[in-house]
């Protein structure tokens, strides 16, 4: 086993970014190969990590814990357990595929690839960090590469989107920082270790505000939840997401939808549920309601989109509602569903955004219908059958057709939620109908019918594009037909989390 494998996985991309920066700007070929090689090695190491992971053990493994700032009790503390292990290979695979997809970018490869590799480090670090300060550092550090990538390589309204992204995330981070400082000062002895802080240490802590004694646990829980909700994104804190997805370069859009927003869902369990179990129980129903609101609101907004990128982005908002709904129900079934949804959504949404990017690159536009109501595309099935085939898989995966991506996860969420909140679950089920509505409408307008102007110059998927699409198709089928390995990875930890929440795993 490679020593310090987790550190290697997290920081190898950063090292790669430095290598890329050291290579002269003109040598674009070398930029590409360094980025590819580094991301490939990172992915291989991630696979090794999973292969050596003991999935019967609920605790943290591959621990790397070194004191960093002793006076503040801040540690360099990395580790993986059932909650985050699946995200490490998923993240590294998606970054690898994104780098392949960005292979033929024309200019500015030095900055592009170095920022992209930096982003990989920050996302992997967010998943792996077990010290809250370190977690926050990675969480915040992710904003910079994204901001610059949108601002420099984005589409027409990139400055607006980048600014909006940054302001939103910064506002969320401010709440997070406030909560984090409160935690630090309340707990004795002070510290940031998530492992040490877990287990309901704040239950009895109270604070006087205006003469009223309030439970600190609830207050801090809400502060941090709001911080995570911005990134998740939860309605009404979501409006950065469609803008950013419409303006970001395709590879970044994939990363944002597939893994970046998942860091927030993961953080809710890792931080909020672990540190504030009582508040989590107290707030669970609100989370479930928020999940259903996300499902319906996102779905209806998606119905109103003409731009394919925004449509898919609102679809993501809707689908993250399933995660929230699952996390709001303290049953093992719903929790597993939420966890599976995070992973499988990363796969099929990644596929969908890759395809949207290909479509936009070919046609130079993203309008499903023009403002006059005419078809923006149309008839692509006869112009680009392979592209249509990939899209078909992505669309049916998103719809939750049995055997494809979303089916096990959404089934488990509904199955787990129904005994507890029947009404909410049935409303949430309507989300399936909304998903069918907006996706099939898009599919019909883009791929079927007469060939529109937008489709005139669309050529089929190339061999290189197949290289990054086929793995996601295979993974989507795998997640839909055989989710057992993923469940096995997470099961002990999820049961442990549920036990710590005082709920029987059932």
């Amino acid at each position, binding site marked *: 086993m490679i020593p310090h494998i987790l550190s290697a996985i997290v920081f190898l991309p950063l090292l790669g970014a430095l290598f890329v920066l050291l290579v002269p700007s003109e040598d674009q070929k070398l930029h590409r190969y360094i980025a590819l090689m580094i991301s490939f090695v990172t992915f291989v190491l991630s696979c090794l990590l999973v292969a050596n992971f003991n999935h019967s053990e609920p605790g943290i493994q591959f621990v790397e814990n070194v004191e960093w700032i002793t006076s503040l009790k801040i540690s360099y503390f990395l580790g993986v357990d059932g909650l985050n292990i699946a995200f490490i290979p998923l993240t590294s695979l998606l970054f690898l595929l994104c780098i392949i997809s960005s292979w033929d970018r024309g200019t500015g490869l030095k900055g592009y690839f170095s920022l992209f590799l930096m982003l990989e480090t920050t996302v992997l670090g967010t998943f792996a960090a077990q010290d809250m300060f370190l977690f926050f550092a990675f969480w915040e550090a992710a904003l910079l590469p994204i901001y610059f990538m949108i601002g420099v390589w984005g589409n027409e309204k990139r400055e607006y989107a980048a600014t909006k992204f940054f302001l939103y995330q910064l506002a969320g981070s401010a709440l997070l920082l406030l909560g984090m400082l409160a935690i630090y000062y309340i707990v004795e002895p002070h510290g940031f270790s998530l492992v040490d802080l877990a287990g309901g240490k704040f239950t009895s802590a109270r604070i006087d505000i205006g003469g009223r004694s309030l439970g600190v646990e609830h207050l801090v829980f809400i502060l941090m939840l709001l911080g995570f909700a911005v990134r998740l994104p939860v309605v009404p804190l979501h409006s950065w997401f469609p803008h950013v997805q419409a303006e970001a370069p395709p590879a970044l859009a994939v990363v944002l939808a597939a893994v970046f927003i998942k860091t927030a869902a993961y953080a809710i369990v890792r931080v909020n549920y672990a540190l504030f179990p009582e508040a989590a129980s107290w707030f669970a129903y609100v989370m479930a309601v928020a999940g259903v609101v996300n499902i319906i609101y996102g779905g209806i907004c998606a119905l109103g989109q003409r731009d394919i990128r925004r449509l898919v982005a609102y679809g993501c908002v809707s689908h993250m509602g399933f995660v929230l709904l699952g996390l709001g129900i303290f049953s093992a079934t719903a929790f597993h569903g939420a966890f599976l949804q995070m992973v499988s959504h990363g796969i099929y949404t990644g596929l969908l955004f890759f395809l949207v990017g290909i479509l936009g690159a070919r046609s130079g536009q993203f309008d499903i219908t023009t403002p006059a109501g005419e078809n923006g595309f149309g008839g692509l099935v*006869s112009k680009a059958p392979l592209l249509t085939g990939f899209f078909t898989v992505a669309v049916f995966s998103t719809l939750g057709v049995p055997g494809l991506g979303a089916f096990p996860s959404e089934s488990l969420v509904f199955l787990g939620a129904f005994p507890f909140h029947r009404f909410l679950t049935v409303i949430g089920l309507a989300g399936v109908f909304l998903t*069918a509505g907006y996706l099939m409408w898009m599919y019909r307008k883009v791929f079927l019918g007469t060939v529109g102007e937008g489709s005139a110059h669309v050529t089929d998927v190339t061999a290189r594009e197949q290289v990054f699409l086929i793995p996601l198709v295979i993974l989507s089928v795998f997640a839909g037909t055989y989710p*057992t390995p993923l*469940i096995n990875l997470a099961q002990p930890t999820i049961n442990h989390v549920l036990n710590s929440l005082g709920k029987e795993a059932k």
Partner: protein
Amino acid sequence: MERLPLFISIGAFLAWVFVALGFDKKLSSAARGIGLGLSLVQLGSAVWATYRIFSETGGVHWSGVWFSLGSGTVFELNFNVDPITVVMWMGLSLFASIEAYFAFLSQIKGAPSQLRGESVALPILGTGALCALSSGNFISYYFGWALIAVAAFMAVSFSEPNREDRSSASFRYFILSVIPEVLFVAGMLGCYASYGTMSFGELNSKVATLNPAWAIYLLVAGTMLRNLQIPFMQNVRYLASAKEASNPIFFMGHAIVSSILFAKIYPAIAATDGIQYFIAVPAITAIAAAVLALPEQDPSMIVGLLVSYVCASVFMSGLSGAFQAAHALALNGALGAFLLAATITNFSEEKRGTRWFLGAATLVMTGLPITGWGWARYLEYVGFVHNDSLQSWFRWIVFGTKILADILMAIALWGLVRERWLDRQGRDGGLRFEVLSPLAILCLSCLAISTGGRLLGGMVGSTDLSAMPNLSWFERLIVPPAGMTRSVTSSYDLIGSDTDITARVLVGAAFLIPALLSGLWFFRDKKSLEEFREGCRNIVAKLGVAPGTNQNSILWVWILKPLHNWVGRGAAFFDSRVVDVIVADIWARPARFIRNVFMFIERAIIDKRLVDGLAESISVIGRSLRLVQNGQVQFYFAVGLILMGAVVIKFVVVGG
């Protein structure tokens, strides 16, 4: 061994999908040849399964954990093949093979190639249908349900993908399929939450404790709406489009979805109070389908309506307690409708074989007693007569409606034969008319025989069909699995008995002989073929059963037209154009309104007021600070003085 035929069959279907995917856009003859080979492999597995079941060497079943959450939820796939489902499996495999064979032949002969997407749809449909019909629990069944919808969507979409009407049809089909799916899934979740099981067997064993029953109602409602019952009968139009895609196996899939759930969980359905009153829905659907089929010119539309009518028959029998009949109707209706659809799809006036098939399929579907559909009808009517769970008056209204629907559908089907074959053959000088006309008379007579026989033969009796000795091979097919019995089916012991056969022969003779004699008498002076043909045309015109013929006839004016007009108003609900308007008013418009409200909230409130407002307020604060930070020393000095003054007032004058 008990799982091998199933695995081989599903494996062959899936391999076929990959073969279709792996070849060029226009499938080569090699791809089709492999597809044919694979379809024959799975046909062989179906034959093997049938042999195992009927020779009692063993059953075909398999269950395995798909995925589980340790001690918690288990997603189990459960497949169990009984005598009924294995015959449907045989039918499915047979027709899939025929489809592959024709596709292969057309390729060899240089006919236009099928698109790959359409070729993928067929085996997916086969897989879905096989999953549904052999399902032993909701998970396996839902697998089949969803795959059939996907395959149907693909079949409609990819047959001629650049046709706007086709893309519109596939879109609407899929959307209308999702609405019942939501109901079905809610019912499935309800069953799991209420009874703690996904297994059909376990659910049926809890018949005595089924409470509450709403989950079962949701399941039934979802399945009914999915299967072309009102108000979603308009999907028939899209079925017609699907059928044009040279994919008649589609019908089989839909019939399976409609009927097999009833067969699987009938004890649970029957144990619920009030479920029988759902019967009004298929009754209206059946009569509407038959009346709409009468003036219909488009043969594929007639077949679409026929499928809707078959599904309605299945539902009616199931809901009235005659679940043996439901099984038999599902099996035979699917086969008959498939045969008819396949014939129409491949119909050619030049091909003698297809002409005969059309006639044979029509004979089957008009209830010829020697055919499966005739037998099924027999069981269906017996079930109606002896259904004690319905109010008497309600039962007879429903029964009467159904018999009327049967007769009208038979007329519509024979109108189709006349339209597609006989008249044209007459014009071309063909010589089958004189054979077919007596056949038509024979068939309608058989319908009467069958009806009369059922009424007479099914009047008495007290034991269950499954306990009946000396079952014939066909009767064994319609005997349900052990344990799925209900007291209302008490008269089935008569089936195949001497009394039964005597009654049928007598009633048959009473109808058939006069019918034949009157036919001979009517045509006694017709010497030439032209005169003979003319005479037949006159009969048809007098009956007024087809559009363009004599619509002043008594039958048309007093019976068919009012009926058509009456149902026609209701039938507006089944007309896709009318439904489009209704859907636009009750769904699309409000949905659009809500969407606009949400978009307003999104843009005007969240983006404009909250986000931009926050940014604006920060900007205002920034500008204000800039006013203060103007860089002039005297300004800072003045501010300092004011602050000092404030401190002095606070602590010296007022007191700290």
